[in-house]
């Protein structure tokens, strides 16, 4: 374990606390400092309207965004390990495209009553799961382990198919429904509610705990299939576990906040540069960094064009492009 890991983790958790507080204290509504503290302390004198904004609107949103950021970063790190490819990302498996196509189809085609009863999140989750099953199905070879590169290419193929479906739905759909669907596609954490938080938290804790318990096996996976097997690890099982965990984390994230790309790709890289690739240290740092990044970006989304809100996806892509290009250059350099 690198000596600087404890310091890094404490610093990141400190940063997390800071941005989480900032996310709760700042927003479109102007609140005086005295009121801010009164609201946080649940003081009787706090203005009721503002208190409602903070407790029913900002706090669940910051919590959800933090959990989603941590979950997507964790899913990305696990996926990069499973496929032994630094460009792997949960969304590469076709998950986001499947979720988008399903959600857009539901928003545009299904009667409103039915969409409301089922909920767009659930429909999106099912779409993600379907795309995932297709990707894995396409990359299976009889009696042999799927080649990581084939999995990625299958994911690209499945993504393309669902993207064209999404485009088709948007093209033929009526303008009002289309605008709704576009909003969902770009990803937003606006309107997150308390009841969505426990589900996100529970899935993150369970997947995180299982992954950390199997940190040795994940480390061995990095050395390659053959070497991991020679060390006594059953790599097929590890991969399956990772894939299921990824669908769970990504599907839930997509269902709550829409499409939030790049977190799963960039954050694990930052963590790996800081602390190395051993999962015992990499995963906690990745999760904490993911939460920090997404809470920060979400806060900026709320503040930059206030009172209008920017979609999460737009700002994220903007921030993620430079590091993405750096990673790409780094890989070419290594090769």
């Amino acid at each position, binding site marked *: 374990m690198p000596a600087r890991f404890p310091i890094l983790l404490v610093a990141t958790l400190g940063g997390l606390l800071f941005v989480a507080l900032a996310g709760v204290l700042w927003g479109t509504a102007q609140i005086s400092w005295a009121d801010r503290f009164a609201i946080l302390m649940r003081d009787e004198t706090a203005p009721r309207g503002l208190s409602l904004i903070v407790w029913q609107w900002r706090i669940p949103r910051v919590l959800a965004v933090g959990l989603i950021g941590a979950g997507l970063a964790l899913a990305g790190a696990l996926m990069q390990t499973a496929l032994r490819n630094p460009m792997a990302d949960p969304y590469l498996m076709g998950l986001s495209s499947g979720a988008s196509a399903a959600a857009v189809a539901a928003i545009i085609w299904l009667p409103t009553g039915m969409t409301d009863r089922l909920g767009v999140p659930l429909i999106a989750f099912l779409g993600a799961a379907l795309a995932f099953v297709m990707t894995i199905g396409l990359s299976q070879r009889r009696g042999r382990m799927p080649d990581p590169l084939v999995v990625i290419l299958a994911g690209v193929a499945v993504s393309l198919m669902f993207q064209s479906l999404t485009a088709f739905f948007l093209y033929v759909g009526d303008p009002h429904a289309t605008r709704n669907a576009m909003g969902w596609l770009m990803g937003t954490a606006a309107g997150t509610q308390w009841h969505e938080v426990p589900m996100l938290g529970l899935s993150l804790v369970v997947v995180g705990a299982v992954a950390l318990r199997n940190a040795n096996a994940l480390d061995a996976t990095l050395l390659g299939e053959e070497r991991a097997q020679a060390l006594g690890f059953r790599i097929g099982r590890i991969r399956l576990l990772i894939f299921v965990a990824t669908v769970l984390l990504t599907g839930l994230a997509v269902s709550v906040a829409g499409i939030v790309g790049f977190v799963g790709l960039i954050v694990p890289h930052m963590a790996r540069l800081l602390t190395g690739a*051993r999962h015992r240290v990499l995963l906690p740092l990745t999760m904490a960094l993911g939460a920090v990044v997404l809470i920060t970006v979400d806060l900026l989304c709320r503040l930059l064009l206030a009172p209008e809100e920017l979609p999460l996806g737009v700002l994220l892509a903007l921030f993620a492009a430079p590091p993405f290009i750096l990673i790409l250059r780094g890989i070419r350099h290594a090769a």
Partner: protein
Amino acid sequence: MLHDPVCRDAALCIRNLSVFVDGRGVVQDASLSVPKGEIHGLLGPNGAGKTTLLRTLYRATRPASGRIEAFGREMDSHSHGEWAQVLGALVQSAGLLAGLTPRDIVEIGLEAKGLGRGEVRRRLDEALGIVGLTDKADQSAERLSGGELQRCYFAQLLACDPQVYVLDEPTNHLDLHYQLVLLDEVRRRGRTVLMCLHDLTLAMRYCHKVYLMQSGRIVASGAPATLLSRDMLMTHYRVDAQFRGASLDVTGPV
């Protein structure tokens, strides 16, 4: 547990092993046994099935039929983890190593064995010293040369020090100095070893017994000095060459 009587005195024993890949018999009815502390070599031209046979031993491939025992333990009746405690392998394969250092690579092997911290540290330092990577222990593995990487994986195996060593082309990418240093170290430890080799002079130098594989079958076996005759090299390796003592005089291909 019932033992195959032929296997009773062997530390590593393979009986009638057949392996199919895509319906093709890559290893067919292979049997061999290595007594405790001996080094045996698998020889043969490219595509003879040497690597597949070794892969079956460290459970990267499932055999269609046959029986494998190591120190009286039957492979199929042990979990992958238990089996890896007895038999360790040096594998031919590249891996993406983003963010890993040589220290990490050796440590991953040792932690898989479930050793305590102090023991991990001791073995780690010793193994990195043997392969000459102490200075580069904390450098990114991506920046190592092919030979240094091979030494790094060799260090992992030496640190784990299993009872049975399975080595697939252990001298790949290594310069002559390290070929001799590392194989000397393996011999010094007195473990039971099965390895495949292309370098016949190394086979002559280190192996107690060699097997010649051809099209998935073991077609001949014996002490290297007897087996590696001019006729055999002509027939199976398609070279005109002859051993004089430990050195190979090569005339050319035929």
